């Protein structure tokens, strides 16, 4: 037992009233295949339905087939629930359910637990037939206690075997029952959830799972001497809950696009899995190409022929698509490119979060290749931005890039159910007569914009080329023509930038420190900034959605703060370490851009640990910056 002084962590005595708390972080860790994620998602759904704020994130093992009972095999889910809206996965876990004593180490490596964390540990390994396992269990148990975890051993297997023959396939519902008791969720809620998730299964399966749920609930109510209560506020709004990749998939449906051309790559693939399943019944199709080059080429062909397409990928795939993406800019072909970023360079950290592709997205192509780049910072934005992206792609005759990341890809959050608008869906392909005197690149001198003829439009025949070209689409090596056409292609983005609003400031519009973020760090940054503000620190934050063209008014905002720094999940040099100094420091990616754009000395904090940034970490960064 820990002697933590935080009362929040102290289990109540048996039968006393449940402890009221604002929020809790629960983790379920196991070998893969034990159903931890199903259990966690169900628990999250029950909580969200009751009106709690929820954020869940999958714990993905480092390998596909990791050995059982291993550190590398830690698989499962983290669920953060609270009275208010939850916007990120938070700091260390408050309560952990571990199905063996080795998997927690995968999480301990990631500093996921703290002194006082309650750990409900499967005890069957204590009496395992193998001495080796028995010893390992004893060792780990002692170690967990010495780390200050509040370990409670639970004979989950033994209890489940009273109901089912194979406890591996059912323990997760026993755990769900325990969680329903611990967090006062009401057993009826659990039963409804089971009926829902197993609705395609037989009654026998549903009943045995309900039995397991009840057993878990019963066991906990008899044997555990604590309960938590996280009050709910019911918004009364229709809500949906999904992860970022699901939101992207549904966003594609909602955008009216009919073609998703892709090549499998983690962590982007699941968006295409969803589309493959549902697209065919809504008038669209997924094309799995032979590689990423072909995937984007196919998408461009489809777009060119009037069906604006989306290609979904991650860093290594983006690298392969580069040449075609330059063509899309040069020949002004609408296209939606979604990059679910992972750790790089090269194969990097395939399952982990990083925001490392900003600069390559902006500048990856040869020559000058301007474009629109957006970054999503919530699950809801993953849905909404796809709709916006197609519109912008077609209006501005350009590729539009959406940057999301591994954190959003698997993070789940409830958001108000989108109210579908008819104009989200693309109109049919324009096949009307093309006006004879309008050239295929009839750039407007003031806006740089032009309308494109689509195959099938009589009178619009021309040959599109990636070579420098005139308004007629004729190949041109003329110095003035290349200068002019490059300027006009740039001008349309300047025109677009004029329609953007400056970012809203979270906090006062002047102060000691302004934090600038982009992408999935929104929730963690705002949570940390909120805590710092309460402590009297004069800190505010802004979060950028448009990275190219950049949102306006940044310099004006920056000038009202003593310090400006970005917080990002990508690499930057730390001047406290050998060789690095102001003259060679490589800044994080957004800070480079902001420094160049505003000429303000924008500092940065960033790392490539592959983990979502926790509010606690960010708070530490804020305090360090304020004190130096």
């Amino acid at each position, binding site marked *: 037992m820990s002697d933590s002084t935080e009362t929040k962590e102290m289990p109540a005595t048996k039968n006393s009233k449940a402890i009221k708390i604002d929020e809790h972080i629960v983790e379920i860790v196991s070998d893969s295949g034990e159903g931890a994620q199903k259990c966690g998602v169900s628990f999250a759904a029950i909580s*969200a339905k009751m009106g709690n704020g929820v954020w869940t994130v999958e714990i993905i093992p480092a390998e596909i087939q990791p050995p059982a009972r291993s550190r590398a095999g830690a698989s499962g889910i983290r669920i953060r629930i609270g009275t208010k809206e939850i916007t990120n996965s938070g700091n260390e876990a408050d309560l952990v359910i571990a199905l063996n004593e080795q998997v927690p180490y995968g999480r301990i490596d990631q500093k996921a637990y703290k002194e006082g964390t309650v750990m409900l540990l499967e005890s069957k390994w204590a009496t395992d037939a193998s001495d080796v396992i028995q010893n390992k269990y004893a060792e780990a148990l002692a170690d967990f206690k010495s780390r200050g975890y509040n370990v409670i051993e639970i004979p989950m297997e033994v209890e489940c075997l009273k109901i089912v023959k194979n406890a591996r396939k059912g323990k997760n519902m026993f755990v769900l029952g325990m969680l329903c008791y611990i967090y006062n969720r009401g057993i009826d809620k659990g039963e409804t959830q089971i009926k829902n998730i197993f609705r395609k299964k037989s009654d026998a399966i549903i009943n045995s799972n309900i039995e397991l749920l009840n057993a878990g609930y019963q066991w906990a109510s008899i044997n555990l001497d604590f309960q938590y209560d996280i009050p709910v506020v019911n918004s009364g709004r*229709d*809500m*949906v*809950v*999904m992860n970022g990749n*699901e939101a992207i998939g*549904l966003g594609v*449906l*909602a955008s*009216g696009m*009919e073609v998703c051309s892709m090549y499998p790559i983690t962590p982007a693939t699941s968006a295409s899995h969803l589309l493959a399943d*549902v697209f*065919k*019944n*809504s*008038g*669209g*199709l997924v*094309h799995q*190409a*032979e590689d990423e*080059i*072909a*995937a984007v*080429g*196919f*998408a*461009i*062909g*489809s777009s*060119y*022929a*009037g*069906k604006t397409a989306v290609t979904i990928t991650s860093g290594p795939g983006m690298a392969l698509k580069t*040449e*075609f993406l330059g*063509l899309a800019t040069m020949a002004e072909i609408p296209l939606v490119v979604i990059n679910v970023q992972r750790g790089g360079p090269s194969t990097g950290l395939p399952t982990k979060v990083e925001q490392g592709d900003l600069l390559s997205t902006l500048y990856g192509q040869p020559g000058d290749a301007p474009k629109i780049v957006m970054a999503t910072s919530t699950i809801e934005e993953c849905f909404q931005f796809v709709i916006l992206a197609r519109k912008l792609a077609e209006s501005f005759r350009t590729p539009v890039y959406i940057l999301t990341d591994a954190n959003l890809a698997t993070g789940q959050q409830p958001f108000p*159910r*989108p109210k*579908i608008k*008819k104009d989200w*869906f693309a109109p*049919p*392909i*324009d*096949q009307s*007569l093309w006006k004879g005197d309008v050239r295929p690149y009839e750039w407007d001198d003031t806006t740089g914009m032009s309308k494109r*003829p689509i*195959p*099938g439009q009589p*009178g*619009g*025949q*021309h*040959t*599109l080329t*990636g*070579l420098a070209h005139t308004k007629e689409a*004729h190949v041109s090596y003329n110095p003035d023509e290349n200068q002019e056409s490059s300027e006009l292609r740039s001008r349309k983005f300047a025109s677009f930038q004029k329609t953007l609003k400056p970012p809203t400031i979270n906090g006062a519009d002047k102060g000691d420190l302004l934090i600038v973020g982009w992408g999935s760090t929104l929730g963690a940054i705002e949570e940390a900034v909120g805590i710092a503000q309460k402590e009297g620190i004069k800190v505010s934050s802004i979060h950028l959605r448009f990275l190219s063209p950049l949102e306006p008014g940044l310099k004006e905002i920056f000038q009202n703060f003593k310090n400006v720094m970005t917080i990002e999940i990508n690499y930057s040099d730390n001047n406290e370490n050998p060789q690095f100094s102001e003259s060679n420091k490589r800044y994080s990616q957004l800070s480079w851009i902001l420094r160049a754009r505003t000429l303000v000395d924008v500092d940065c904090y960033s790392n490539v640990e592959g983990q979502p940034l926790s509010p606690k970490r960010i708070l530490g960064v804020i305090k360090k910056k304020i004190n130096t």
Partner: protein
Amino acid sequence: MYGLKSDVALDLPSKYYSLEGYEKGVARWCPGCGDHAVLTNMQKLLREKQLDPAKTVFVSGIGCSSRFPHYMNTYGFHGLHGRAFPVAEGVKFRRPDLDVFVVTGDGDCCSIGAGAWIHAIRYNMNMTVLLLNNEIYGLTKKQASPTSRIGTVSNTTPDGSILPPLSPVQTTLGVANASFVAQTADWNPAHMYETIKAAYEHKGFSFVHIIQRCPIFQGALVDEQVSNKDAMVYLENENGITVSEEIAKTFKNKFNHNPSDLSEARNLAMDTEKVHMGLFYQDKNAPCYDDYGASNLGYTVEQKEEALNKELDKYAI
């Protein structure tokens, strides 16, 4: 029609397209380049078939031969080196109403684009493909290509190339789902015409290997190819490509080959002594990926809205 909404399909008054209707500009290939003959033949084919220029798309990669679309008064996509196939596939996927042609070179198709080529054969989408093989990189000024024969002296192989050439016909015949493979030569325009016509009429990926002269960088080869009448063999068969008796008579050698016989086709393609002209292989029943692409066209906004609502229901809490 074809899943396009009826209110957007424009009814054009029926109109006769003359040859000039398909021509655009003056081709900038060198005098004597085999590409000229292919262009002329293609324009004739479009006239014979009275293809609507607005509904015809020529897709190419990069190379001398890939300039082709610029000289056609149709829609054209002169894209990236080696990447014509994926673009053409994307064009065709949701637009069965468009006629798609691909023009590619030996470097474009068999070197940088080899991966996409293999898969394009397997997708077997309905398009007509012309590989203009001059056995050299023309545009970049004389480098050996994968189809250059052993001993080819070029700027990157000054001592002569050392590897045996890749045979485009043999390679295509080796890929699963190949459905139409033919060979012709630019200096026999009548044979070439019948070949590209048969290719156009075939539903699927119609691959035509055109042996093409490059008098500038492969001058010696040109003489050898055109004058070596012993090597040329006319593939005759009732199911093959038939030329007029007059033209047939110009061939010293003839061979009766049934284009449904894949293993004989492969043997013929491996014969390095002889050049077989005509249809190597045809399978009219090979599955076409564009049938999948066109399988669910024309959903209305209401249908899409309903489908989305149904999906959102699954995530509702």
